[in-house]
C-alpha cells in the first residue's frame, strides 16, 4: 500500500514547502509543510501530503493547512497536522483532526540526581517502574475510581488527582491548561466511553506510549535551560500517555455522528474520516465538550503516572521525592483542539486550533504561561525513539505568527509496524539496546519492541533541526534514554 505522492511542492525556503491552491479544486487554503531535503523523500513516499491537501477543504480553515516535519500518513488528517478554523466564517470542528487518543501528550520531570547518582540503582529502578506502573494492552490500574469520581475527573482533570493527594498544586501550574480544560460536560460522554475509561486511570497503555528515565546530554541555551531547571548530566523522566479507552470511544462516537453532519450541513470533504460539524452547531459543541472530558482525563492520568513514578523513586533511593527534586518541568498535549486567540493579518481572532500530532509552542509573554516561564516561552517536549534522543524546546514568536503557536510532536514513524517487525525478525532489540547503548528496555507486549525499534522512526535530530531552523521553536536541551518501560 506504499503509494507515493505525485504532485509538485513549491519551495519557499530550505524548511518550507507549499502545496498550491491549484493542486486540487476544493482546497480553501494552500498547504504548508515544514521539512528539509532529507525528510522530503520519506514524506513523498506515502499519502501524507494528499492528506494535508484534503484538510484544506475544511470550511472556515484559516491561512494554511499546516504540516510539521514529523508528518506521516494518518487517516483523515495526517499525523503532524495543524489546522485552525474560524467560527465566524463557518469554521468546523473535526474529531479526526484531534485523533482517537485525545490529549495524548508528554510530561517531563526533572530531578536533582545525576548520572553518577543513578548508575548503581538503574536496573533496580527500571524493574521497579515496570512492576509498579500498569502498562500493556487493555491494562487497568491500581488507582480505582468510583463512577462519581470518574465524572469529577472529566470535569477537573489533573486537579482531581492533586486533590486526591497524587501531586501538588505546583504540578498543575506547570501543565498545559493547568491540567484541566473548562467547559467539559460529562453528559456528552457516552455510556460506552465511560466503560472504556473505567479503571484505566494511572495506566500507561501500549504501543508508542512509554515512561523513560533519561540523562540530559546537551544544553543548547544555558539561560533558558536554567529557568526550566535543566542542567547537563541531570536525570529526567519522560511520560508519554493519553486518554486511553475513553478518548478512543469519544472520537469513535463523534466521527460516526459527524459523518451524518456532512450531509446535514452540506459539507464536502474528500475523506469521510474528515467528518466535521460547524463549531457553533449542536453536534460541534457536543464533541468539543466531550473532547474536553477526555483531555482532562488524560491530564489526570499523566498526573497519576507521575505520582506512581515518584513513589518508585522514593522506594529505590530511600528519600522523599521532594528531596530528590522530582518536579514537573511541563506537560504538553499533542492531540487536541483548542479555542485560542491568534493574530491573522494583523487582526485578533478567536480560532479553533486542531493539533493532531503537533505541540503547542506559545511564545514568550503569552498570558497562559506560568509566571516562571512567561518571559522565555513555553517548554515544548519532543519524545524521540527509545534508542536515540528526546528534546526540550521553547516556543517562539515566529510560531505565533506562522503556525498558530504550534510545532512538531516527535520523531514520526518511518516504517509501518509490520515493516518494523520484519526488519527486526530474529533480533533481540532489548539486548541490542543494552549492548550498544547501555539502555535498559522492558516491555509487556511481545512485538512492542520490534514495532517500536529505533529504526522504525525518523531521526528526531533532523526533525527538531527543521523546527529550530525554521524558527517555530528553539532547541534548549537534549536527553538520551537510560531505561525505558513500554506497554
Amino acid at each position, binding site marked *: *500500500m*506504499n503509494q507515493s505522492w505525485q504532485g509538485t511542492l513549491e519551495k519557499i525556503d530550505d524548511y518550507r514547502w507549499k502545496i498550491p491552491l491549484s493542486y486540487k479544486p476544493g482546497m480553501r487554503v494552500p498547504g504548508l509543510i515544514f521539512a528539509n531535503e532529507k525528510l522530503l523523500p520519506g514524506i513523498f513516499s*506515502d499519502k*501524507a501530503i494528499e492528506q494535508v491537501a484534503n484538510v484544506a477543504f475544511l470550511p472556515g480553515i484559516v491561512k494554511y493547512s499546516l504540516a510539521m516535519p514529523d508528518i*506521516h*500518513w*494518518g*487517516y*483523515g488528517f495526517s*499525523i503532524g497536522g495543524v489546522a485552525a478554523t474560524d467560527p465566524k466564517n463557518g469554521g468546523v470542528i473535526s474529531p479526526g483532526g484531534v*485523533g*482517537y*487518543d485525545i490529549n495524548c501528550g508528554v510530561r517531563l520531570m526533572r530531578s536533582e540526581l545525576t548520572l553518577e547518582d543513578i548508575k548503581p540503582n538503574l536496573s533496580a529502578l527500571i524493574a521497579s517502574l515496570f512492576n509498579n506502573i500498569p502498562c*500493556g*494492552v*487493555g*491494562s487497568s490500574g491500581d488507582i480505582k475510581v468510583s463512577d462519581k469520581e470518574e465524572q469529577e475527573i472529566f470535569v477537573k482533570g489533573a486537579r482531581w488527582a492533586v486533590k486526591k493527594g497524587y501531586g501538588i498544586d505546583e504540578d498543575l501550574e506547570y501543565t498545559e491548561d493547568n491540567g484541566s480544560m473548562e467547559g467539559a460536560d460529562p453528559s456528552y460522554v457516552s455510556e*460506552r466511553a465511560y*466503560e*472504556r475509561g473505567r479503571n484505566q486511570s494511572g495506566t500507561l*497503555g*501500549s*504501543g508508542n506510549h512509554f515512561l523513560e528515565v533519561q540523562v540530559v546530554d546537551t544544553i543548547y541555551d544555558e539561560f533558558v535551560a536554567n529557568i526550566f531547571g535543566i542542567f547537563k548530566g541531570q536525570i529526567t523522566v519522560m511520560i508519554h500517555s493519553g486518554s486511553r*479507552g475513553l478518548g*478512543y*470511544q469519544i*472520537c*469513535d462516537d463523534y*466521527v*460516526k455522528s459527524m*459523518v451524518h453532519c456532512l450531509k446535514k450541513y452540506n459539507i464536502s470533504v474528500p*475523506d*469521510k*474520516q474528515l*467528518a466535521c460539524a460547524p463549531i457553533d452547531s449542536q453536534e460541534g459543541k457536543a464533541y468539543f465538550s466531550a473532547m474536553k472530558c477526555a483531555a482532562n482525563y488524560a491530564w489526570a492520568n499523566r498526573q497519576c503516572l507521575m505520582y506512581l513514578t515518584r513513589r518508585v523513586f522514593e522506594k529505590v533511593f530511600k528519600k522523599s521525592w521532594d528531596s530528590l527534586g522530582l518536579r514537573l518541568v511541563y506537560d504538553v498535549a499533542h492531540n487536541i483542539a483548542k479555542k485560542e486567540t491568534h493574530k491573522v493579518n494583523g487582526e485578533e481572532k478567536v480560532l479553533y486550533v486542531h493539533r493532531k500530532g503537533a505541540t503547542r509552542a506559545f511564545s514568550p509573554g503569552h498570558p497562559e504561561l506560568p509566571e516562571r516561564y512567561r518571559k522565555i516561552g513555553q517548554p515544548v517536549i519532543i519524545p524521540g525513539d527509545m534508542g536515540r534522543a528526546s528534546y526540550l524546546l521553547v516556543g517562539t514568536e515566529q510560531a505565533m505568527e506562522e503556525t498558530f503557536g504550534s510545532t512538531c510532536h516527535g520523531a514520526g*514513524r*518511518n*516504517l*509501518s*509496524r*509490520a*515493516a518494523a517487525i520484519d526488519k527486526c525478525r530474529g533480533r533481540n532489540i532489548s539486548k541490542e539496546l543494552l549492548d550498544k547503548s547501555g539502555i535498559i528496555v522492558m516491555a509487556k*507486549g*511481545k*512485538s512492542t519492541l520490534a514495532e517500536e525499534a529505533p529504526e522504525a522512526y525518523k531521526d528526531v535530530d533532523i526533525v527538531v533541526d527543521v523546527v529550530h531552523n525554521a524558527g517555530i521553536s528553539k532547541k534548549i536541551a537534549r536527553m538520551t534514554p537510560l531505561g525505558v518501560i513500554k*506497554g
Partner: protein
Amino acid sequence: MKPYEIIEHTADVGLKVYSPSLKELFENAARGMFEIIAGKYYGEKIDIQKSIHIKKEVDAFEELLVDWLSELLYIFNKEKILFRDFNVLELNYNGLSGIASGRSIDFRYANLRTEIKAVTFHNLKIEENEKGFSCGIIFDV
C-alpha cells in the same frame, strides 16, 4: 481468493478484505481484525465457549461495516471475549444480524499483539467486481 491481507500503513494497520459475497466480506473483515489483535495463529489456541448475537441498523454498507467491527471491538474490550468464528446471518439495507463466537480471556496473560483503538472511515469503500467484493479498512492502533 485470499479472505484478507494485513496491509501496511505507516502509523496504523489496515486490512484488504476480499470475498464472493457481502456477508463473507463482513465475516472476513472480523477475522482479519482479530488476527491483528491476537496474532496469526490465535484461532488454533482457543476453543469456543461463548457466542454473542449482534444486531445493527444503518443505511450505508460502509458505515455498517465500521459499526459491526466497532461492536466486536467493544465487546472484546468490555467482556474480554476473544472471537474466532463469525457468522453473518442477515445483511441488507435494513441492517445486520450476526453471531460472533470465541472464549473469555485474561488480558494479563493473553499475550495480545496490538491494541486497536478504533476502526476508521479513512478511504473506506466497498467495491464490487465480477469476482465479488473487496474493501480496505484502516484501524487506529
